[in-house]
């Protein structure tokens, strides 16, 4: 019978199934494969001009507005890259080739700019020239995915050029009106599974870990509006009778350097959580842990209670702010280790293999990452959609700018290179497996969105991806040894 229903569903929607992309799934895979294989720095030898003629090449790109002339220039490269899928356009009226070439041109310009900024032939003048040209071609609010995306990337590069991207990424909260932020957040949650995937996976892992505990204490790195905890509380309250709802305590972290707005937000979040908990009958208390900018996070700044199960929650994915200095995250996780928690939940963005390639390589990887995100958002919405533009403006754009800045400063073998998951593995944590329930939940969650979303199960993490590009990973950890001296004691 289930089958019968499925078939019926197929029938009903058959007309609607494949309108989201202009390519077949196979092509997508192929292209993504190519893209992943494509070395981050373009193979300049493939070009008619030699590497030294880089400048001439770029100039020729910029002077020429004729697509076919550009096509000639990039002949070799274009031939080896399937151009039809990375930049997916919804408008079929113009020749598809044209749009793709435009998108490709943008990619090349961005890469060239990144090269000019940091490559062997470093030249800020050249970079400036390229960026100016880019600015003419793109806009953050109009055009195709690639155009809007390129707008933010070139804005990021521009910022690097001018030295205006500070050590701390800009806090979007301070830059956008509160209503914009809330609206964008709501939309983002509804148009994609990113937010919920991270929260629900972490929550389920927490639920499983504290199933027999009477007191639970969660330390949250970036609580934002506290949306993650609503569903956790609900789940705790509806636990089986043999395990009545435990007392839940949440400590939210703030740093005094982050702006008074964020501190106020956390206070409001606390009030809201308290009200909510009361409305569903969940015993709850809320604390705020305000750290000075250079104060280390650790057992000394927290109030711990004997017998409570300590959980450390570190959400770094959109729309959480993670482009704060990597030091902040590292300090947090190190401090977490010292606390000897029962569980650590970590959700972060997946970055591709970075390996060699330096700044340009990671820049291009980041471009690929966000183009997948843009594609995934587009898959459910028409192109000129204000909702997406808002989400891009409030969350994605600033994040892109922050990420590029972080990559730029990162260079070398620092935390910027490896994922936090890898870092955890080497910092005294061992992985905790993801349960069948959790995996199933993730699949169900994705099931409501577009087909292109995939979830992959690795030993201790679930990876949410779009088509073949992994985007988000939710992982679960526990200290690899339990230090009796560090066990929770009352202070």
């Amino acid at each position, binding site marked *: *019978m*289930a089958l019968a*229903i*499925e078939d*019926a*569903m*197929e029938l*009903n*929607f*058959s*007309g*609607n*199934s494949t*309108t*989201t992309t202009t390519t077949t799934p196979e092509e997508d895979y192929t292209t993504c494969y190519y893209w992943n294989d494509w070395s981050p720095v373009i193979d300049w030898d493939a070009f008619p001009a030699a590497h030294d003629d880089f400048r001439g090449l770029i100039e020729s790109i910029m002077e020429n507005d004729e697509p076919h002339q550009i096509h000639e220039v990039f002949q070799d490269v274009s031939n080896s890259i399937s151009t039809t899928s990375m930049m997916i356009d919804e408008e079929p009226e113009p020749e598809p080739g044209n749009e793709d070439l435009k998108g490709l041109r943008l990619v090349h310009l961005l890469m060239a700019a990144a090269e000019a900024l940091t490559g062997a032939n470093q030249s800020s003048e050249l970079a400036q020239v390229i960026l100016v040209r880019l600015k003419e071609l793109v806009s953050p609010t109009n055009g195709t995915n690639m155009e809007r995306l390129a707008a933010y990337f070139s804005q990021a590069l521009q910022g690097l050029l001018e030295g205006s991207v500070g050590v701390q990424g800009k806090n979007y909260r301070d830059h956008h*009106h*509160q*209503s*914009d932020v*809330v*609206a964008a957040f*709501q*939309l983002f*949650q*509804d*148009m994609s599974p990113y937010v*919920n995937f991270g929260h*629900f996976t972490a*929550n389920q892992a927490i639920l499983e870990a504290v199933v027999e505990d009477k007191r639970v204490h969660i330390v949250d790195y970036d609580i934002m509006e*506290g*949306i993650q905890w*609503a*569903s956790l509380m*609900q*789940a705790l309250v*509806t636990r089986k009778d043999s395990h009545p709802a435990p007392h839940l305590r949440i400590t939210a972290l703030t740093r005094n350097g982050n702006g008074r707005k964020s501190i106020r937000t956390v206070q*409001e979040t606390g009030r*809201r959580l308290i009200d*909510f908990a009361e409305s569903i009958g969940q015993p709850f208390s809320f604390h705020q842990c305000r750290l000075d900018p250079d104060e280390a996070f650790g057992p000394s700044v927290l109030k711990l209670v004997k017998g409570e199960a300590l959980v450390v929650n570190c959400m770094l994915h959109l729309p959480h702010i993670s482009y704060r200095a990597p030091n902040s995250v590292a300090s947090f996780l190190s401090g977490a280790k010292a606390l000897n928690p029962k569980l650590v939940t970590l959700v972060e963005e997946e970055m591709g293999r970075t390996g060699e390639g330096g700044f340009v390589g990671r820049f291009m990887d980041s471009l690929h990452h966000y183009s997948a995100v843009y594609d995934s958002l587009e*898959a*459910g*919405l*028409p192109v000129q*959609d*204000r*909702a997406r*533009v*808002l989400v891009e*403006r409030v969350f994605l754009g600033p994040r892109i700018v922050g990420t590029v800045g972080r990559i730029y400063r990162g260079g070398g073998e620092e935390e910027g290179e490896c994922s936090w998951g890898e870092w955890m593995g080497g910092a005294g944590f061992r992985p905790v497996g993801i349960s*069948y*329930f959790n995996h*199933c*939940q993730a*699949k*169900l969650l*994705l*099931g*409501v969105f*577009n*087909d292109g979303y995939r979830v992959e199960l690795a030993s201790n993490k679930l990876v949410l991806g779009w088509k073949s590009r992994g985007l988000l990973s939710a992982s679960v950890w526990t200290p690899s040894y339990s230090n009796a001296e560090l066990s929770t004691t009352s202070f």
Partner: protein
Amino acid sequence: MFHAKKPTMNSHDRPMCVQGDSGLVLTTDPKPRLRWTAELHERFVDAVTQLGGPDKATPKSIMRVMGVKGLTLYHLKSHLQKFRLGKQPHKEFNDHSVKDGERVSALDLQRNAASSSGFMVHSMNENLHITESLRRHMEAQREQLEVQKHLQLRIEAQGKYMQTILEKACETLSGENMASASYKGDGSQGIVEMEAMKDFGTPVNFPCLQDLHIYGEQIDMQQLTDRSSLDGFLPTNDSVCLGKKRPSLHGGSSKNPFIWLSDDFRLQELGNMAACLGSQEDSFKGEHLQIPPSTINSTGSDLDSLSDVYETKPILTGDAMGEKKFEASKLERPSPRRASLPVERVNPAIKGAALSQGRNLPYG
């Protein structure tokens, strides 16, 4: 169409797929052999259960309970015997929660196996294997249903929470606007925004807001919901929300298994709020979600006049919308939502329904 599907999605409902008539199928053998179809067997099992199990039931009583014309004691005797034999190793198939299709197939096997006594043992082993894999399959499905149930509850809770955020945001906005209006004398700008909003097209919210603004009073839900201008209003939330537990807002009613209700709800509220915020004219194919434009940044604080209204706005998504709205929204379902279903779907109906009822707002 989804209405029709609804009843079948509840796994506790009686399975409906087998709808043949109740006529008996007799073969043309010299010996009148009755063909035990799935449906017939089901009736048999019901009768047996009613009578207290295969051990207590007698062919005579079964015949009486079943009330099927042409069924003789002979038929029932042999069938009952096979049934009793088959019952031991295959207990789970007598569980009524099993999906009908699977039960039928297993029982068919059982019947086939039992019919030739010579091969009884061998066939029973085969049956055991099949039983095992079927049972595992069923367990997996049960688990998936569990997961789905929990997920649904969690998402609802989240939606409820989200609502408080939206309300708070509206309040904050109102506070800011009040302040700026009185002290900076920028109230006029707020009015300008309102005027601009009045010029906006169809979206339902605007006429409402307009009126609310003019009358400058807290309009309660009743008035809002009576408003005819709410006609195009996103109905999904309401009809879909039938079962949602929002004690403070809805008169929620029937059960609803679909999980994206809360999303619709929030989006709708968002539409309200966003509309409040003097969003730009852009509307998505006549949908009602308005997104605050960049103008908000500069003038957002000046939309004071809208503020009181927004207090009630999130609550607006009340229960006024009737079934017809649901139909309308269903038709407007956006095409990009994919139709093909991934492999491991627990309940395709949920997704289908979600697709139809949810997320069709600006995503047209």
